[in-house]
């Protein structure tokens, strides 16, 4: 019982870490493509392409690990979602919405950016703010 509980705790931590890595890497990946779109020139700068590639290579396995960990937790009968996690999700969504609106502010001051870049920056901001809010609301005493 104790070892099963310990395994569940480890899997839960792995799930949290994998989800965080996926969110951060996906946001960096989107921001990199958005930055490249904003440049409006052919070809990628080497460093930006490297950032794009590294974040992609990090995001995909992290998502796979998160999905595996969640399935494992459910198979072991561990509680993955309850009223507090739903509450945290909703509050984080509200924070993400505020973040999305904040990212639109420069466009009201005639900052010229292609719409594709704007969309990617918006989604990246939503991911970052959602993740940060989730970490904050999930903190323990």
């Amino acid at each position, binding site marked *: 019982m104790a070892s099963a*509980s310990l395994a569940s*705790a480890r899997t*839960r931590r792995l799930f949290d870490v994998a989800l965080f890595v996926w969110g951060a890497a996906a946001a960096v990946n989107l921001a990199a493509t958005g930055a490249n779109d904003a440049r409006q020139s052919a070809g990628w700068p080497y460093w930006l392409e490297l950032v794009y590639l590294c974040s992609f290579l990090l995001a995909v396995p992290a998502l796979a690990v998160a999905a595996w960990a969640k399935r494992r937790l459910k198979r072991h009968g561990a*509680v*993955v979602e*309850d*009223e*507090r*996690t739903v*509450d945290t999700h909703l509050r984080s969504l509200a924070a993400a919405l505020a973040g999305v609106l904040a990212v639109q502010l420069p466009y009201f001051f005639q900052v010229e950016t292609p719409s594709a870049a704007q969309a990617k920056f918006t989604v990246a901001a939503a991911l970052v703010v959602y993740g940060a809010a989730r970490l904050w609301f*999930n903190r*323990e*005493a």
Partner: protein
Amino acid sequence: MGAAHPLRNRIKVERARHDLTQEQLADLVGVTRKTINTVETGKFVPSTVLALKLARALHTRVEELFYLADEE
């Protein structure tokens, strides 16, 4: 109302009386350990259903487990 009368609880005391860890109490009521922790520390106000489940798991009454700060 909520700010003037924050909800307090005796979960930690009752949990210790029954020799239960946060993890064990969480398993009994079907929530995560972190939910028990945040309810105990007053950061999360549980629903009526969860409050009733906690009271039942700790063999006490809801009004003995939860109380308003001005009742201290």
